[in-house]
């Protein structure tokens, strides 16, 4: 293998022109739709405590954002109305064919919307940006499993989810501990990443919505049997492009989830950043009914331009940044 000169860009100049066009198209879309463009701090005293997202810590005890969501929701609580932002975000160790530790997030919030209505707007944005110009299928989390795995994800136990892997040809990870074995979400995630998501959005993009309540993250949970998280994701050619929520507005519940995630992190001996207390206060001060979504701009560009690897659309990927 011939070593490539590392001073050179990872992306071609033609792709960088396509990137500039995509950013212009996104900006035009939000101007047409009347959303306010905002900029919020990249560096914060707080960080996400999401179990599976690690933040970069800075020398002075602050944190690089993994998403601008907390600051944007504080603006919403302060009465900003609909807002959008293009933000650099950072996630430790996320490195691979479709990952780079630093990437560009498009995030927007629509007061008065729920997750279903926001899906319509995500679809409109993608069509505006050159993605397939048709109606994108909405598939519930349950329907996706029934269609592609042949079972209902809400009724199988952790053990049963595990037992089904072999027949589907999915390799079980090595070195699992007792907590993994008993964790339904661990096995659901494995099914999702190894088997279901690679089959989603093969023709046109597809939405996945109504997640298990245990995977609500910052979404509100709708009562029912089973209760469902009002959360959606968008997939195109097997790649996750966006994640949206009908936003949780209950300060007490938000605090409870932050504390539960911190406790899980402590028990797993992972770093435990301080959760965003300002967000909890903002929700307590009164947060309008609202939906929000985060979309990976680099991945969208990769798919629009037919590139196979994320680094092909980054001026300088992590190995040469």
């Amino acid at each position, binding site marked *: 293998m011939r070593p490539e000169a590392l001073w050179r860009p990872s992306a071609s100049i033609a792709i960088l022109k396509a990137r500039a066009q995509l950013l212009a198209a996104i900006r035009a879309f939000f101007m047409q739709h009347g959303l306010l463009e905002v900029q919020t701090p990249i560096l914060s005293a707080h960080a996400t405590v999401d179990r599976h997202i690690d933040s970069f810590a800075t020398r002075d005890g602050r944190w690089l954002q993994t998403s601008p969501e907390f600051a944007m929701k504080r603006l919403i609580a302060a009465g900003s109305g609909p807002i959008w932002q293009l933000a650099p975000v950072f996630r430790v*160790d996320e490195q*691979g064919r479709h990952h780079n530790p630093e990437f560009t997030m498009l995030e927007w919030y629509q007061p008065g919307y729920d997750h279903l209505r926001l899906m319509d707007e995500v679809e409109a944005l993608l069509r505006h940006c050159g993605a397939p110009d048709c109606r994108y299928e909405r598939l519930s989390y349950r329907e996706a499993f029934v269609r592609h795995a042949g079972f209902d994800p809400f009724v199988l136990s952790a053990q049963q989810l595990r037992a089904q892997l072999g027949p589907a040809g999915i390799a079980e990870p090595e070195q699992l501990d007792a907590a993994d074995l008993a964790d339904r979400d661990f096995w659901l995630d494995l099914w999702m990443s190894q088997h279901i998501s690679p089959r989603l959005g093969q023709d046109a993009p597809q939405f996945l919505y109504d997640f298990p309540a245990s995977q609500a993250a910052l979404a509100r949970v709708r009562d029912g049997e089973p209760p469902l998280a009002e959360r959606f994701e968008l997939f195109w050619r097997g790649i996750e492009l966006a994640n949206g929520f009908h936003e949780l507005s209950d300060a007490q519940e938000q605090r409870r989830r932050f504390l539960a995630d911190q406790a899980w992190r402590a028990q797993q001996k992972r770093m435990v950043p301080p959760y965003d207390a300002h967000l909890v206060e903002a929700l307590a001060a009164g947060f309008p009914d609202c939906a929000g979504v985060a979309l990976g701009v680099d991945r969208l560009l990769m798919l629009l331009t037919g590139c196979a690897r994320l680094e092909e659309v980054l001026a300088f990927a992590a190995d040469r940044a």
Partner: protein
Amino acid sequence: MASVSTNEMKAGTKVLIDGDPYSVIENEYRKPGKGQATNTLKIRNLKTGRVLEKTLKSGDSWEAADVEDKDMQYLYNDGQFWTLMDPVSYEQIQAGEAAMADAAKWLKGEETVRVTLWNEAPLVVYAPNTVELVVAETDPGLRGDTATGGTKPAKLETGAVVRVPLFVNEGEKIKVDTRTGEYLSRVGK
């Protein structure tokens, strides 16, 4: 014991699994947006050559294998062992038949060979990609046949047998690709 985490595993990283040394070929990172990330690793067993796939949770690790590649000089074979010398320290080590399996038939002595060492013992010896050897035995070429592409077996001075064009004669030196075992050209005198 040093360990290697999934995010440090790159093509060529050497790891130890169930007592066997492996070389990483590919590392595929998968992560659902809000869920547990995994790495699927394609790895080659350096003792058997077998390739397999294993999955780890991201952040988990394997023990690092004390494996290194070194260029060494092949000196001689005493019938049982092949003796190799480090050209810098002049230290000599012996490789057994298992390590020599693919390389032995191409070597005369004095060549520089790539040696994969595990705990300082030779695991695999690789012949140079191309070697120049004299044809020891082959049938005489057929009259007038030059460009029809016909081939015949030829035994080389090291004992290796390769297919050569019909015009190649005994006593001539030829160049061979050791990875494919294919004849490349005659070597001018």
